[in-house]
């Protein structure tokens, strides 16, 4: 049972692609081998900046022999048919066997396929894998036609047995597979011959290459945290950066350096972002002050001066970067302090939000007006909400955010405070983009909620008004995210707004209309319901994650007032809980039975049985008991519904379950006496109506 070692050695592979690529290599090769009958015991895949590696243990030496019997034409069939069969089966006429069949004599062919040597199969599978590799972006180089992520230089492919290694014969676009790899580009250049995986890993390590990315990441983290700890400091965790940096080096050497004192006063977010984005440095924090005071950089080599030159160089580059940052910060603070951010707000007029939706300034005007409208419903002061909205996008034209767009909002808060605006306004500036994803924190401070809601509703109504809705996987303006944001803001904060009835959408729309000349697209009456349906769709997805069934939501969506998402969800949660109980399940059955009988009768008779059930026509205890129960619980349900206490309404409904069950047990609705029958049908209608007032149970499965 040989082991297989494959290494694809190339110029530097982008860090972000390495993990996925090593997994793809493993999947494509092992799938291909197994499909050809070559199974294996264990697989391991690795990547460094210059290589993808796959090691398989316990591979079969050959694929097993196979025998297939194939039935052919009848004896005496035309020669053409027989020849065709022979060609397809790959046998000669002498090899055919004649057997008796129900309908006479028939030719049979026995196709024996001898197993193939592992090397042959590996060569085929690896070549196909290389030629079809799913890189996110690939390229050609030189005069060749092969595509790889960057130029591919070597293919190492060997089968190792006890008696030595066999090079798998394989040539791809002039690259001949061998048993040769290379060590570290600078610390151990030159060819290395290997005999198997263990030998390969050991020789690479001697040649200053750590093959396993996890081992590299662990080493980086270990050394970085140790260095920080020794100085009474801590490294700011950043898993994404750690993985990226581990993909940039084959021989990680961590170096810790100081941030020039002149820049320590910069906001920690600025230091961290600048260091991470531009330099791929880790931030090192003083746990006592929370300040970022040093950095860790990861070099790809050891040097005679123990990294002194490298660290000095990195420090100089960082100082230049932070000098830019400090320059932006000082300039921005001056604008905030002296001009109360006004120049930035004015500049928003020349920043296009969308060609058909005007500038950021116009957008801000709409958001401010809407935030003001929404303020009472979310418990915010309208003036504060409007003020925060007017400031919300100002930092977009600040120098810092121009340089680091990911700091939008965060810088706005610093600047709003510097300008002397109240804390709740500054916080709203920072928080109004949130929530950005399904797990991002939802703002709860009233002013923040008002601005955040307004920002998202404006975005949605705007894009709906110009008919730029998400389609399929295309959602370039992140409207699904905005919709989910609206939903979560409303639900988390228990906000009661009727999106259509209170004309929230149309207010946003009128503001759009006021601010630009000639939007083409549907008007509010057309797109309003469609936008609400979009919100409902997102809500369904959101509630499904909460364990509320699709049909349960549909039952609630069919009720009036479904443009109040908070109310809608209250109803759905209560119904979902109710239907999980025994009473709920049985009441649903009772409702369905009543509804079916009624529907049939109404269709047959051509009338609607909708009123006038009278207890005096009741002729059994069960029937009278049902009248009594409906009389007793009807007002309770109505009252609970009035109070929007869906739990109480459901509890009251639950009390109907026993009388309904008993009624159906004892009473035949379709009596021969017409007056009795009609009365019973009208009684069933009372059940139907009470249930339908709570939710459209016809839409619930089961």
């Amino acid at each position, binding site marked *: 049972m040989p082991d297989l070692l494959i290494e694809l050695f190339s110029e*530097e592979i982008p860090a972000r692609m390495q993990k996925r690529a090593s997994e793809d290599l493993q999947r494509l090769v092992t799938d291909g081998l197994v499909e050809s009958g070559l199974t294996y015991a264990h697989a391991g895949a690795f990547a460094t900046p210059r290589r993808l590696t796959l090691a398989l243990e316990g591979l079969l030496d050959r694929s097993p022999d196979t025998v297939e019997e194939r039935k052919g034409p009848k004896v005496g069939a035309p020669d053409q048919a027989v020849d065709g069969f022979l060609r397809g089966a790959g046998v000669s006429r002498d090899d055919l066997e004649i057997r008796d069949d129900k309908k006479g004599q028939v030719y049979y062919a026995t196709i024996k396929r001898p197993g193939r040597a592992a090397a042959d199969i590996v060569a085929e599978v690896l070549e196909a894998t290389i030629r079809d590799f799913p890189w996110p972006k690939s390229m*050609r180089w030189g005069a060749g036609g092969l595509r790889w*992520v960057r130029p591919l230089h070597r293919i190492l492919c060997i089968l190792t047995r006890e008696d030595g290694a066999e090079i798998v014969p394989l040539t791809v676009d002039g690259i001949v597979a061998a048993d040769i790899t290379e060590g570290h580009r600078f610390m151990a250049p030159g060819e290395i011959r290997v005999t198997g995986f263990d030998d390969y890993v050991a020789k690479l390590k001697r040649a200053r290459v750590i093959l396993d990315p996890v081992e590299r990441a662990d080493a980086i983290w270990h050394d970085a945290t140790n260095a920080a700890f020794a100085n009474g400091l801590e490294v700011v965790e950043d898993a994404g950066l750690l993985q990226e940096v581990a993909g940039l*080096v084959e021989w990680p050497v961590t170096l810790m350096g100081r941030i020039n004192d002149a820049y320590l006063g910069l906001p920690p977010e600025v230091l961290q972002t600048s260091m991470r984005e531009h330099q791929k440095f880790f931030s090192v924090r003083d746990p006592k002050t929370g300040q970022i005071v040093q950095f860790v950089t990861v070099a790809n080599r050891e040097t005679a001066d123990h990294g002194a*030159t490298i660290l000095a*160089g990195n420090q100089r580059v960082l100082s230049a970067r932070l000098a830019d940052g400090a320059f932006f910060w000082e300039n921005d603070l001056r604008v905030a302090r002296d001009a109360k951010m006004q120049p930035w707000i004015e500049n928003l007029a*020349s920043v296009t939000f969308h060609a058909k939706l005007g500038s950021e300034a116009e957008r801000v005007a709409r958001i401010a007006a809407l935030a003001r409208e929404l303020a009472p419903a979310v418990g915010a002061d309208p003036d504060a909400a409007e003020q925060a909205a007017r400031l919300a996008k100002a930092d977009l034209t600040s120098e810092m955010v121009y340089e680091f767009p990911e700091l939008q909002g965060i810088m706005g808060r610093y600047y709003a405070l510097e300008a002397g605006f109240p804390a709740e306004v500054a916080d709203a500036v920072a928080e109004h983009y949130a929530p950005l994803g399904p797990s991002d924190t939802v703002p709860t401070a009233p002013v923040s909620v008002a601005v955040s809601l307004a920002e998202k509703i404006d975005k949605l109504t705007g894009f709906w008004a110009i008919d730029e809705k998400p389609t399929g996987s295309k959602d370039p303006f992140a409207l699904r995210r905005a919709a989910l944001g609206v939903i979560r803001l409303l639900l988390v904060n228990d906000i009661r707004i009727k999106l259509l009835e209170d004309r929230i959408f149309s207010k946003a729309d009128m503001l759009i209309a006021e601010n630009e000349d000639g939007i083409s697209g549907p008007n509010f009456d057309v797109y309003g319901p469609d936008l609400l349906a979009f919100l409902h769709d997102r809500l369904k997805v959101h509630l499904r994650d909460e364990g509320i069934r699709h049909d349960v939501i549909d039952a609630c969506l069919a009720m009036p007032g479904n443009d109040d998402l908070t109310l809608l969800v209250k109803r759905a949660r209560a119904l979902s809980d109710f239907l999980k109980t025994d009473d709920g399940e049985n009441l649903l059955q009772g409702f369905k039975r009543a509804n079916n009988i009624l529907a049939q009768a109404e269709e047959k008779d051509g009338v609607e049985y909708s009123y006038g059930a009278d207890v005096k026509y009741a002729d059994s205890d069960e029937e009278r008991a049902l009248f009594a129960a409906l009389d007793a619980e009807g007002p309770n349900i109505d009252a609970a519904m009035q109070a929007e206490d869906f739990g109480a309404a459901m509890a009251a409904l639950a009390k109907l379950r026993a009388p309904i069950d008993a009624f159906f047990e004892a009473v035949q609705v379709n009596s021969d006496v017409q007056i009795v029958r009609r009365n019973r049908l009208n009684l069933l209608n009372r059940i139907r109506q009470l249930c339908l007032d709570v939710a459209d149970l016809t839409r619930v499965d089961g």
Partner: protein
Amino acid sequence: MAQPRCFQDIILALQKYWADAGCAVLQPYDMEVGAGTFHPATTLRALGPTPWSAAYVQPSRRPTDGRYGDSPNRWQHYYQFQVIIKPSPPDLQELYLGSLEAIGINAELHDIRFVEDDWESPTLGAWGLGWEVWCDGMEVSQFTYFQQVGGHDCHPVSGELTYGLERLAMYVLGFDDGNAMPFNPPDAPIPLTYGDVFREAEAQYARWNFDTADTATLLQHFQDAEAECARILDQPDTDPKTGRHIVMAQPAYDQAIKASHVFNLLDARGVISVTERQAFIGRVRALTKMCADAFLRTGAGGRAA
């Protein structure tokens, strides 16, 4: 090569190195361009099957980068050193590392890394894959394998190296202020710094670029260049006077270069809105695309003689 002492030592060392490596050492293109890639020795020669190998310094202009000569590391006029080899040789990375050695960057002491950076030029309709090369955390070069230029697949592929000379020189010479960096040897009879050579001009151009340039004239220049480019390429491939096959790809491309630079000036004047910007870029791209199409009908572009 001894350790460089001044800006021009670095240019001379790079020229010597790439000349020894077999490149034709060309001179800068005699037009205002935004980057060394615009030189026809790169843009046009990257097209078609004919092998090519060139290295040159290219003065480049980015009007929006003007800082009146006050910035230690930004100038509206700066230098790039450009190498282009088609087809890209298999040892291009080693050749490149040799060039760093030649200007005094010792790989035994420094940390040199190839960090993913894909290159795209919307005005040239071009893109490629490659890296920015880091030395101790600083970007010292751009390294690109051209995949497309002017909308055409590159076959064979050219390898392109671009050195930002000021930044590289500041690093090698140990200067944080580029204007203070020596341009010629510090012990020359008349030693000059980078600032001595360019600072005054930087202020003049910044004033002109940002405030003085006449936008109506510039717009007219843009339209004229655009029209002339199209007119040149509308001519039949066969010259009626000589009867020879003469496709005027390069004169047309000069007009595209002109349009591109005028667009950059208009941008610096702040008269181009975000939406218009895309439209202008699209218009320049259309010109370079036409020039690329035309170049492929020339001898250098692979037309059978």
